[in-house]
């Protein structure tokens, strides 16, 4: 029961975040990009509920718009990872043999490279932008999904309904897309939910390192990064994006864990 309540909490927080992201233009008290030097580094007040940064921009407004960017990156990156992981896992699990061996060794290879270095080197080549960040996070996080889908298919393909479908003339593509994958989706949904939290965290890390979303576009990671310089004098610049990241990742994890319990 307590577990259930936590899952619902996670879901509610995420729902609120999605609403906030959608309604950012109406909820923001100020323009998130409007520089206003006379008001720089003001502590939280009625006019600026979460204070202002070095350039006098409203932190609350920047956070609200940052929600959009962070959620967008989280979902699209995980979408990319799920598509690649499902494809590779399905092919490996369905065909088995040397196809499986080659694909799984590729997965092992990808897993053996420290993700952060892989991310940094790809971004160093392609240059940082929102699109590159989404693509790169997706391209470096599909391995877990691939393993999951492969394992599911290995056991599902022995089930009799798959033989029954084959006996009735279904082609391999049809078997995979219509009969096997729909039966393998529950653990993928769980892993994707947990993955969105991870992707948001990775985005924050990259933006914090200056390789993610580029200023002036606000993301939680780069607000945190800009606040780092003024950490001694303006705590509100780092605490508020930090709390946002924490809450969101926690919510995704609670929801994901809850779903995992349900599907077990």
């Amino acid at each position, binding site marked *: 029961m307590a577990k259930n309540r936590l899952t619902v909490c996670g879901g509610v927080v995420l729902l609120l975040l999605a609403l906030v992201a959608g309604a950012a233009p109406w909820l923001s008290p100020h323009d998130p990009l409007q520089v206003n030097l006379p008001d720089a580094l003001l502590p939280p007040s009625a006019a600026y509920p979460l204070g202002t940064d070095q350039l006098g921009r409203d932190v609350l407004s920047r956070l609200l718009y940052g929600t959009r960017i962070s959620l967008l990156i989280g979902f699209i990156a995980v979408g990319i990872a799920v598509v690649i992981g499902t494809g590779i896992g399905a092919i490996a699990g369905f065909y088995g043999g040397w196809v499986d061996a080659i694909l799984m060794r590729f997965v092992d290879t990808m897993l053996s490279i420290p993700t952060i270095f892989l991310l940094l080197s790809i971004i160093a080549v392609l240059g940082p932008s929102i699109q590159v960040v989404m693509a790169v996070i997706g391209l470096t996080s599909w391995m877990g999904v691939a393993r999951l889908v492969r394992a599911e298919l290995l056991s599902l393909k022995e089930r009799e*309904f798959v033989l*029954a479908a084959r*006996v*009735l003339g*279904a082609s391999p593509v049809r078997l995979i897309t219509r*009969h096997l994958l729909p*039966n393998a989706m529950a653990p993928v949904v769980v892993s994707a939910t947990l993955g969105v939290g991870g992707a948001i965290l990775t985005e924050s890390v990259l933006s914090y390192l200056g390789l993610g979303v580029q200023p002036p576009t606000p993301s939680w990671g780069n607000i945190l990064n800009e606040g780092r310089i003024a950490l001694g004098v303006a705590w509100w610049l780092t605490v508020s994006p930090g709390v946002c990241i924490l809450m969101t990742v926690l919510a995704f994890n609670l929801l994901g864990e809850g779903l995992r319990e349900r599907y077990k």
Partner: protein
Amino acid sequence: MSEKVPGTSPLGMPLLTVENLSVTYRQDGAPVRAVDGVSFAIEPGEVLALVGESGSGKSSVALALARLLPPMASVSGRVMLSEADLLDAPEATLRAIRGGTIAYVFQDPAASLNPVLTIGEQLVEMLTRHTPLRGRDAERAAVEWLGRMGIASAAERLHAYPHEFSGGMQQRVCLAMALCASPSLLVADEPTTALDVTVQVAILRLLRELQRRLGLAVLLISHDLLVVERLAHRIGIMAGGRLVELGPAEQVLRRPAHDQTKLLLRARAAMTLRR
């Protein structure tokens, strides 16, 4: 015993001829010969039963016909379906034949249906694959077939999932899926073994009625002579991978020639007594 098939009815060309079929399973250890030089023919509209205890190779025969065995099985011999050897045919041809010309029904209907697709989706998929029917027309045909299988209010049940059906109903759905593409041969591998006794009788009755009405040839696989004698025109007895006896049902049941047949008949007698 099996060079020239005895009891061949005078209907002319057999629908399917199996010549010297052998199946060997190879796994790490020594190869296991599951089917050893089995030959038989099925006429159009005929019900041939293969009977044997478990492990006698009867299911391997059934699956080998349309080359459905796993890769670790090596199959030799010939399976002739109207001039074409299925054991040599390309995969694409086989896919059209599976379900189109040769349809299968298995032992456990609950396991044979995809748990995440509705009955209707699965039937429509079959119809789309093997008939020119599409969309609404396919759906209408699906309802018709369910009705023909004795499923009440078929139009509503179309949107139900397999778990909402009882075992007997699930097997009726499997039969509908097997028969909706008008195959000429139905391979029924222990079609009633997983069902309750009362449901067994109903399914066998349905099978017999459909077989007569559609002029369907049936290869019925069973370990149970009680099941077989209700349907079969001819009975083949399998033991240790060989077809040890094959003849008209009457003859095999009344004047069994092989010990294995006598054994199976005695088992049947014991079963009848216990009832």
